[in-house]
């Protein structure tokens, strides 16, 4: 049986040798899968391959049984995979409202856009409250929340979040984690990358540990968290 999202033997890089060296990964529908691993392990690179920003040189990427290899970012978006990247990605001089509205850039049905906009405002009140302010005027945590809101404008079947808690203070970080968990509880499939392995795996249903372009271990979130070897290798330092 094919998984929801399945990567097999994926190799990819940026021109100077492969960063991903034959990576196998699967994400089940309805799961919250969390990838952890040291800096430079290639976590963001995996996500870039899935979103079509980077073409794999070998291997297969399948989503709901259909190959994504060689498809444009736009086509992949059209299949319901939306990514919030690691870097801040709001358009800083545009207003919060414009930013969120652009999340539905590929949707041409105005009434659907309005409906989604209303739904997103209900989930994230900040979108309506700060609608006229330029995105750059929000704090880091607020910007992350607005990025989530923008991503939800497409009502994605797979939402990819690359280190959403990066650079946030502890309080905002737990707000972001709660939001992530709530989105999963509401039935959405999430693929999360997290530096802070303990918090990430803590809310995940599935855990994946990556090292130098390969998956070292994967399994239920709690199991990965409890694995003594992995705990000693990766979690001690980052917790």
């Amino acid at each position, binding site marked *: 049986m094919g998984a929801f999202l399945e990567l097999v033997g994926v190799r990819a890089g940026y*021109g100077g040798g492969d960063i991903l060296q034959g990576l196998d990964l699967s994400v089940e529908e309805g799961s919250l899968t969390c990838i952890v691993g040291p800096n430079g392990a290639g976590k963001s690179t995996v996500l*870039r391959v899935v*979103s079509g*920003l980077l073409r794999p040189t070998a291997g297969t990427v399948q989503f709901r049984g259909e190959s994504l290899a060689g498809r*444009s*970012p*736009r086509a992949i*978006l*059209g299949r319901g995979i*939306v*990514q*919030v*990247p690691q*870097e801040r*990605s*709001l*358009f*800083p*001089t*545009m207003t919060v409202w*414009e930013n969120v509205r*652009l*999340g539905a*850039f*590929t949707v041409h049905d105005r009434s659907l856009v309005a409906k989604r906009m209303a739904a997103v405002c209900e989930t994230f009140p900040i979108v309506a409250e700060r609608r006229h302010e330029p995105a750059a005027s929000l704090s880091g945590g607020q910007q992350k929340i607005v990025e989530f809101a*923008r991503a939800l404008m497409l009502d994605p079947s797979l939402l990819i979040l690359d280190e959403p808690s990066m650079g946030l203070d502890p309080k905002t970080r737990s707000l972001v984690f709660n939001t992530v968990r709530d989105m999963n509880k509401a039935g959405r499939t999430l693929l999360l990358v997290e530096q802070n392995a303990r918090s990430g795996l803590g809310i995940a249903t599935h855990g994946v540990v990556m090292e130098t372009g390969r998956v070292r271990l994967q399994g239920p979130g709690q199991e990965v968290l409890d694995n003594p070897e992995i705990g000693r290798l990766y979690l001690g330092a980052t917790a």
Partner: protein
Amino acid sequence: MTLVLEAAVLGVLTGGVYALMASGLTLIFGVMRIINVGHGALVVLGAYLSFAASRSLHIDPFLTLVITMPVMFLLGMVLQIVFIRPLKTDREALSVLVTYALALGIEGLLGYFFTANYTQLQAWYDTASFPIGSFRITYVYVFGFALCLAILAVMFLVLYRTTFGASIRATMLNRTAAQLIGIDVDRVSAVAFGIGMATAAAGGVVFGITTAFNPGSHYDLISRLLTIIVLGGLGSLRGAIVAALIMLVSEDITAVLISPVWANFVFFVILVGVLLIRPQGLYGVRVRDRL
């Protein structure tokens, strides 16, 4: 005093033309992160196309824009797809070489078809003038200014009032984020290059009526346009407009107050002064780290 006022007015009017030409250049930079060193040659190409069209069809040079702007727009899309799009790595550095080669290619072709002799576009308004207060202004400067203002207005409307414009701005602000919301940045880039060339065509007409030019005229032009967008802040349309006005007004005023020899000097003092305080230019943002 009248002289200074006259110089200021003339500076604003010619500044409008430079503002338009520099806007195209800064738009191209903003969307693609490339320095189009060939932009001056594209302006000269526009001037020659209008020259040929007005000669052969016996029409007013400004009227030729109905032909040259669409032609240059399409040519711009083709040039972007053929020469710029293939540059995947080291785009900033390579693009300078590629667009410089483009400039030399255009210069060569124009030399072949039109010779290296100086020409100028002719119209009834190129020397005719009207009085305003105690001095006279040549019509062409007013017409050129009005044209450039109108084109800039259209550009701003498209950028700020249409969905396609929003996708151009989004690409300028964050290319990866734009891709992640489904914007086809390759298509946006091609169109932006087309728009840049269409504005070069419009700038070329005014340039060609007010200045005698030959295929080599682009060297001087590009160095002026580059200093304008550096002063204004790379990628900022507002900056390009303000900086163009500062350049032309300061040059014209210096020329009458001190001497034409010093005209550039004062502008460069302003440029260096601004860059010391704001290295990113008047309206520039520090170029963000790329993916």
